[in-house]
């Protein structure tokens, strides 16, 4: 949103100015030329925008509308789509693997998101105090977010957590001999969550920015009143940065719903089928991908995509509704 405000102010702004001047002064001469000028500038504006407009129409909006249509069809990519009404949607509810994917993704969102944000906030609070080598630490903690979504990190992660690999051996030094984590349906999910939590850099940077905005006087005043560290955190830090928490939460939840690459790589080769050991890592987008591109059921996959969109929309709506209760904006009524 901010980007459009910044990138196209001149066109929009001048047009509005022009209208304002036109209304009180109806003399034909200058108004006509002003209108011409405005029109020309509007045209130029649209021309500048056109690459993005074409991009959105062709690459986002178009495919989305097509997929909405396909969601109501039986479509195998090769024969023409056949209308089946709501059958794809009703099939989902009797599809065990669909439920499994909803369960896995829900669990991941519920655990990974708060964990990641908690770590991000914790590290941000450590890094906000000026100290030596601050820049280095900030970059170091941010680095995993830059490379985390890549396939290579998934592979490294897999190698770390395999049977008799680094993690397994380190833990056995402390008397825990659990075997590798990857092949065990009970432990593959924690592996995936750990990988996600480790990429806390992006929310951390945002938290850092938020923390810096909190006025020092508030803390000083609280200290004078005898408030302890926990009390200061709960009564000052959290309320003051709640808009940032809200923003991060929203972003990370949406992000978590769409987890794909890391699950795919961690679970490794699955004999042409997704899901990892006992379908324990069958995340939603992955099942969608399998149905669409392996099983050639693009209609069903499209319907699944729209269900995911609906799910994310509901969660987002609930979050927005709930923010009245816990997010404090400075201009707001407190």
């Amino acid at each position: 949103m901010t980007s459009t405000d910044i990138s196209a102010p001149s066109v929009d702004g001048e047009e509005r100015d022009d209208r304002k001047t036109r209304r009180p002064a109806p003399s034909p001469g200058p108004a006509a030329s002003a209108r011409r000028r405005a029109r020309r500038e509007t045209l130029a504006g649209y021309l500048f925008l056109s690459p993005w407009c074409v991009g959105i129409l062709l690459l986002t909006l178009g495919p989305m509308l097509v997929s909405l249509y396909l969601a109501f069809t039986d479509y195998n990519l090769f024969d023409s789509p056949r209308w089946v009404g709501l059958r794809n949607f009703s099939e989902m509810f009797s599809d065990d693997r669909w439920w499994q994917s909803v369960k896995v993704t829900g669990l991941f969102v519920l655990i990974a998101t708060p964990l990641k944000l908690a770590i991000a906030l914790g590290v941000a609070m450590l890094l906000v105090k000026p100290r030596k080598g601050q820049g280095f630490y900030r970059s170091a903690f941010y680095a995993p977010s830059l490379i985390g979504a890549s396939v290579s990190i998934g592979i490294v992660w897999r190698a770390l957590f395999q049977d008799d690999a680094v993690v397994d051996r380190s833990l056995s030094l402390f008397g825990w001999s659990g075997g590798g984590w990857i092949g065990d349906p009970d432990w593959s999910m924690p592996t995936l969550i750990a990988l996600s939590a480790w990429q806390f850099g992006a929310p951390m940077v945002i938290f850092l920015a938020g923390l810096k905005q909190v006025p020092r006087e508030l803390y000083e005043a609280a200290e004078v009143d005898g408030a302890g560290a926990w009390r200061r955190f709960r009564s000052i830090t959290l309320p003051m940065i709640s808009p940032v928490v809200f923003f991060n939460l929203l972003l990370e939840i949406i992000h978590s719903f769409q987890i794909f690459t890391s699950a795919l790589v961690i679970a490794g080769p699955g004999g042409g089928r997704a899901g990892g050991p006992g379908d324990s890592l069958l995340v939603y987008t992955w099942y969608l991908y399998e149905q669409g591109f392996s099983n050639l059921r693009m209609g069903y996959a499209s319907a699944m995509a729209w269900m995911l969109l609906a799910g994310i929309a509901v969660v987002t709506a609930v979050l927005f509704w709930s923010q009245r209760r816990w997010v404090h904006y400075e201009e707001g009524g407190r």
Partner: protein
Amino acid sequence: MSSRLSRTTGLRALGAGLVALGLLASGCGGGGDSGDGKVTIRYSWWGAQDRADLINKTIELFEKEHPNIEVKTDFQEYGDFWTKFNTQAAGGNPPDVFQNSHAFLRKYGQKNLLLDLNAQVKAGNLDLSDFRQGLEKAGEVDGKLLGVPVGANTFTVVYDVEAFKKVGVTPEPGWTWEDFDKAVEKISGSKKDFWGASDNGGVMYLYDLYLRQQGKAFFTEKGLGFTEADLRKWWGDHREKSKEGLLVPAKQSEQVKPKSSVSAELSAAEFTWDNFLVRYTSETDKELALAPIPTMDGKKTGQYLSSLMLSASARTKHPEEVATFIDFMVNDPEVGKIMGYNRGVLPTNAQFEAYKPEGPDAMIAEYENSVTEYLEPITPHPAGTDTVEAAFLSIYGSVAQGTTSVDDGVAQFFGEAKTALGS
């Protein structure tokens, strides 16, 4: 002043837009043939790097003999290969020629994606006269020639020679499941973290042979050739053996992927295709050997010859060149020498005789030679076979991991198979 400025900006924007459009258009139109009469064909296959190294050598050879044809290559592992292929094919841009197998002939044949190569055979661009017995018709579906074999393989037990010798069981033609179970039991008790056999309850091709030994088969022309009760017994038996500690636990075998349990030295026997011996022996120092599938009656193994093939896309603009390419790949003796048995025993007499197998390849040749007399016609592979195979493996995986009961797993499999086979 400002109006002139805006006009020039407008024009510039227009110009920039046109340039961008031009770039887009030229980008999309790329990949055509260059003007010097040279034809480019695209070839893709699945496999690991070792296969790619060999194939690239054969392509060099081909391009030297056919300087007017250029071959562009692309390969992935099995699972990724087909998702990429599907995406390309759906976009009307599949490779001109690609690796294929029985499981996919009907699936893509029905969708009119595969070129009927009979016309090219008639035109003399593709010579099928030299194929070894049982292979000439391997790629034929309903009278159409949809694939040409590049290698033949049959199912086998890869076993640990020393482990079997120790317990006094010799895997040989005519051995029975009783012999096999006895050996497995003895081996499993002998050592910690070592089991008599891998848990292959999810391997469709093994279950197919087991059914064929009883006069049934995994597939009929139309759908599944067995009942839920049959499968409950097959999976139930495997679970029981596993609980008795006779089969490699799923948690262990999952960890060592992509290695197999036998080459990771967890088990003494594994059921698979015979050409996998090449890969397995490269992964372990243990002595491995091949034996036919155990039987019920001392005779019938149910085995048949399968093959990897080359298929051509029905949309190719260069059917002649593609046929020439396939012809070269299956008939040229030098190609046979380079490829060895990477994709199975070489398909034509010329290649088979040109290549002198050593090591594991020699064992594969000897093994296939020894079972030839028992081989029977192949089980039908209806459209959807690949999906069913993957479901069979994955659902049994859940059963073996203990996250699904045998009964639930069987019900789930039959549900998914019904969807996949469209019956």
